[in-house]
């Protein structure tokens, strides 16, 4: 045991003498852990919110009885079922805007709520809130985080557009972004008197679901899936993409760790041989190396977990806003971290450190004690390794090509991404070496010949750092190309979808007679209504929109594919427009039949056109407004689109807002809607941009760490030139040229890899994950910017080692000749 302890002490003494190298290793592991765990914290917090939302009204302990096609129904059906002995409880759901935020409002009947949900505790005989919900002044239950997000204190009675809500009451265990009130209060605030969204019954209530049709005249049915469970499924792709990016950042961070460990191993080879010569066994040395790595990994991992928490805390509000905006998910901007998160993060760090150090430990265990330090033999081994690496890269790129041609599904998409990136990373040093050999062969001047030949030798030690830099640059180019193209496409698409100058919405009761009022307003040219109904198509939630037949839509609606008489089919109530993601999901094309589950029965239609619907996780179908009203007479009214004379939007809004009958209406002009939409877009990709920037910073740190470590090992290669008359300053300049050349070559490699990555993202991953495809736009200026960034990174990373070289005392250079080992 004491031998193991002293061996470990010797190994650790290396880091005491080289704190910069230790810092590089710890930084690599910590950064990798921070980025990975930060992303996982965001995912976990969101999933926790989904679980709370799913459990809010009972989750698996309850069943839902509702209209199969969605929409509300009259509460008399609830009364009829209760009289027939069914243990059902009514729920009304809707959305309210408070303090600039949209929240989910749930009205419940506390006395009849089935047990099992977070809200069910309200009706508990002891400690429940049933009395407070029912008796004046009543109460609005909300999670403490929701109150913090609204910046309201307990007891405040917020004013919603439809009316005042009862005083707020904070309750632990509630889902974020949700307000629970008595159903009567909800009906009043939502402007839906006597309406019920669904009925809850205890699972295993023992009643025959088929009897529902008879009792409710076919209006209601027991649903297989609760709508509360949709969130996890809808947001799966979003979280998967976040996880994939976090994993990429983790791998880049591991490259740093691997580079630092690999360099430390080369530097410690003499030490390891001495240890063996003095009698430390190979097994003992290997175990000590493993123990050393585990200890460093635990320390670095702990620091990384703290960093991950900070990253998650910084990004959580943007992620929550994206999820709320994109999916309507009630995610608060807070974090709740479980012990499992800490343990899994540290576990990842240990695994990653093990993967990074594994090769070194294996070599140490098999190290021949008598093998001298032979730089040429090492270079020969590096060349042999390059050959195998090149073959592995080719194999992976071939796999990527095969997956691109024949793969199907999101898993295949991510496998394609992984094969592409790994193949490119492994191939980068091979391509680099080939370019350097070509340059060396063409060089005439002796110093130039030395420069390129030495660059080949140096690239071996820098290969991991250069691979990390290439991956980070390619990821930036790829994701930047995708996001830039998405933004350009999204902006154009918004211009087409938001053709009206003003949009107005409000409670149904407040909007009675709105058309007449609007058309009576000067400068208003048209008032176009819309309607919305919920449906389930192919098991997925979908929205059925009813739009008026008007030139605004005929001329401007973006269509990807359409029948020649698309709008005539729509006007006749025979055709429907289907969103791209729904069409992909259901395998529909123009001319295919589509049956909608309308309120009055199945409605057969023909797909008249397919349109892009970016950012919508649900399916969407557009039908004629009048046909929609006939099929879903009770459906909710959507917003009104007003066409005005050019430049008159502001005046129209002012005039309508002044109308006392429209005090509960909300008005927004086209520019405002676009601003909101683009703001949500930017928030959604703010997370991606942050991770991109961090990954590039991590790669830059890898290069700096490698260069700093290698600089001390470079003296035996540089000393002979100095002895032959090349000044230290000139040597430093040559080293700078070499580093810039390496970085420039890496940037040149990163561009095609980044573009390939962008293609995979838009053509494969995006389509599989979200159901829509983006056109691929190219941004050459971005490539130039990335190249500039690579050169800048190399310049900054080289600065310290070059400054040291230029100031190295001659005696130190001369020492290189006497200490050749």
């Amino acid at each position, binding site marked *: 045991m*004491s*031998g193991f302890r002293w061996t470990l002490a010797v190994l650790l003494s290396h880091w*005491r003498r080289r704190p910069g190298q230790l810092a590089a290793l710890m930084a690599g592991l910590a950064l990798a852990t921070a980025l990975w765990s930060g992303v996982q914290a965001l995912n976990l917090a969101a999933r926790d919110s989904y679980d709370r939302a799913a459990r809010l009204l009972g989750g698996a302990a309850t069943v839902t009885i509702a209209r199969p096609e969605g929409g509300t129904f009259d509460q008399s059906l609830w009364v009829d079922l209760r009289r027939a002995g069914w243990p059902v409880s009514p729920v009304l759901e809707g959305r309210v805007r408070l303090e600039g935020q949209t929240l989910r409002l749930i009205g419940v009947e506390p006395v009849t709520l089935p047990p099992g949900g977070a809200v069910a505790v309200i009706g508990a005989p002891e400690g429940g809130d049933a009395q407070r919900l029912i008796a004046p002044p009543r109460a609005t239950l909300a999670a403490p985080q929701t109150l913090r997000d609204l910046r309201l204190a307990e007891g405040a009675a917020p004013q919603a557009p439809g009316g005042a809500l009862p005083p707020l009451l904070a309750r632990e265990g509630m889902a974020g972004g949700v307000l629970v009130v008595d159903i009567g209060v909800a009906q009043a605030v939502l402007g839906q008197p006597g309406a019920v969204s669904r009925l809850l019954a205890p699972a295993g209530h023992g009643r025959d679901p088929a009897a529902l049709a008879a009792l409710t005249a076919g209006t209601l049915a027991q649903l297989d899936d609760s709508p509360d469970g949709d969130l996890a499924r809808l947001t799966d792709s979003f979280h998967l993409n976040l996880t994939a990016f976090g994993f990429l950042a983790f791998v880049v961070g591991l490259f740093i760790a691997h580079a630092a460990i690999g360099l430390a191993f080369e530097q410690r080879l003499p*030490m390891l041989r001495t*240890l063996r*010569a003095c*009698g*430390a066994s*190979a097994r003992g040395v290997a175990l000590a190396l493993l123990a050393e790595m585990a200890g460093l990994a635990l320390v670095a991992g702990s620091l990384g977990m703290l960093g991950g928490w900070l990253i998650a805390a910084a990004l959580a509000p943007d992620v929550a806003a994206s999820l709320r905006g994109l999916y309507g998910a009630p995610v608060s901007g807070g974090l709740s971290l479980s012990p499992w998160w800490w343990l899994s993060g540290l576990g990842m760090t240990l695994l990653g450190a093990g993967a990074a150090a594994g090769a070194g430990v294996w070599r140490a265990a098999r190290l021949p*004690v008598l093998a001298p330090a032979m730089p040429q033999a090492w270079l020969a081994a590096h060349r042999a390794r390059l050959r195998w690496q090149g073959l592995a890269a080719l194999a992976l790129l071939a796999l990527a090509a095969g997956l691109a041609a024949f793969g199907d599904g999101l898993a295949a998409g991510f496998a394609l991404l992984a094969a592409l990136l790994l193949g490119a990373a492994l191939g980068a040093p091979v391509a680099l070496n080939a370019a350097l050999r070509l340059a060396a062969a063409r060089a005439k001047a002796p110093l130039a010949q030395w420069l390129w030949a030495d660059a080949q030798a140096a690239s071996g030690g820098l290969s991991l750092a250069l691979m990390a830099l290439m991956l980070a640059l390619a990821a930036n180019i790829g994701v930047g190309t995708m996001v830039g193209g998405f933004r350009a496409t999204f902006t154009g698409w918004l211009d087409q979808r938001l053709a009206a100058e003003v949009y107005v919405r409000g409670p149904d009761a407040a909007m009675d007679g709105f058309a007449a009022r609007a058309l009576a307003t000067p400068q208003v040219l048209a008032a176009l209504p819309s309607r919305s109904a919920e449906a389930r198509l192919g098991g997925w939630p979908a929205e059925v929109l009813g739009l008026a037949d008007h030139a605004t839509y005929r001329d401007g609606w973006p269509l990807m594919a359409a029948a020649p008489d698309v709008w005539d089919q729509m006007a006749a109530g025979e055709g429907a427009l289907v969103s791209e993601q729904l069409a992909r999901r259901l395998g529909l094309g123009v001319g295919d039949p589509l049956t909608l589950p309308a309120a009055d029965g199945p409605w057969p239609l023909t797909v008249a056109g397919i349109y892009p619907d970016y950012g919508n996780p649900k399916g969407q179908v557009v039908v004629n407004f009048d046909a929609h009203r006939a099929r879903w007479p009770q459906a909710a009214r959507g917003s009104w689109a007003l066409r005005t004379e050019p430049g008159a939007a502001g005046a129209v809004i002012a005039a309508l807002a002044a109308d006392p009958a429209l005090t509960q209406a909300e008005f927004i002009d086209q520019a405002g809607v676009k601003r909101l939409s683009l703001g949500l877009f930017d928030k959604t990709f703010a997370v991606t941009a942050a991770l991109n920037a961090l990954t590039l910073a991590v790669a830059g740190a890898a290069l700096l760490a490698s260069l700093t470590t290698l600089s001390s090992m470079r003296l035996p290669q540089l000393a002979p030139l100095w002895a032959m008359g090349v000044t230290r300053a000139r040597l430093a300049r040559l080293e700078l040229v070499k580093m810039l050349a390496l970085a420039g070559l890496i940037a040149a490699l990163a561009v095609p890899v980044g573009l390939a990555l962008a293609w995979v993202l838009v053509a494969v991953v995006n389509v599989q994950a979200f159901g829509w495809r983006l056109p691929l736009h190219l941004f050459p200026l971005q490539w130039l910017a990335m190249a500039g960034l690579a050169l800048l990174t190399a310049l900054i990373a080289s600065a310290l080692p070059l400054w040291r070289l230029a100031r190295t005392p001659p005696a130190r250079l001369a020492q290189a000749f006497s200490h050749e080992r």
Partner: protein
Amino acid sequence: MLSITGLRKSYATPQGPQAVLGGVDLALAAGETLALMGESGSGKSTLLHLAAGLDAADAGAIRVGETEVTALDDAGRAALRRDRIGLVFQQFNLIASLSVADNLAFQARLAGREDAAWQAELAARLGLDGLLARYPEQLSGGQQQRVAIGRALAARPLLLMADEPTGALDEATSDAVMALMLELVAASGCALLMATHSARLAGMLGRTVRLHNGRLA
């Protein structure tokens, strides 16, 4: 103390196996000092490495004390070096990240036989008292070799093996280092097997054998 019989060793080369030792017999008694001479490529270092368990022989037997070295596996040979043998190399082979004091004590600590008093005596006799806090890169070649000798002797080995210990030093320093090493070997009672190409240095030891083309002449 050391008994070698019929020792053979060859190395693989692209041109085929190259024999380095072609059957060597050698014996060294406790406390004896033996110089192993021969021209470059005669197999001196190979013989030393095999005797120290740093490499495995193709044929023959090596015994150190009661231990049959050739019958040991890698772990066994490591234990032998740790507990019974001290090694001094031409290029010092100190641990760069340990101070002089820690380098001196290192092998003794590894063997579990640290003796502070003996270490202090070694440091004093090797002239290292004022250098204990320094690191190897801060020492001259002669100073580094003295630390290497001290490290090898601090664990009180039965057998000290030195491979061209003064090869990297000038003549005056070589003589000083040799004198110190012989003095301490005598003080510790261990045997010394030293490979050298210098007849002058070989003459300072008790006995000399000469290797020629892998055999003792």
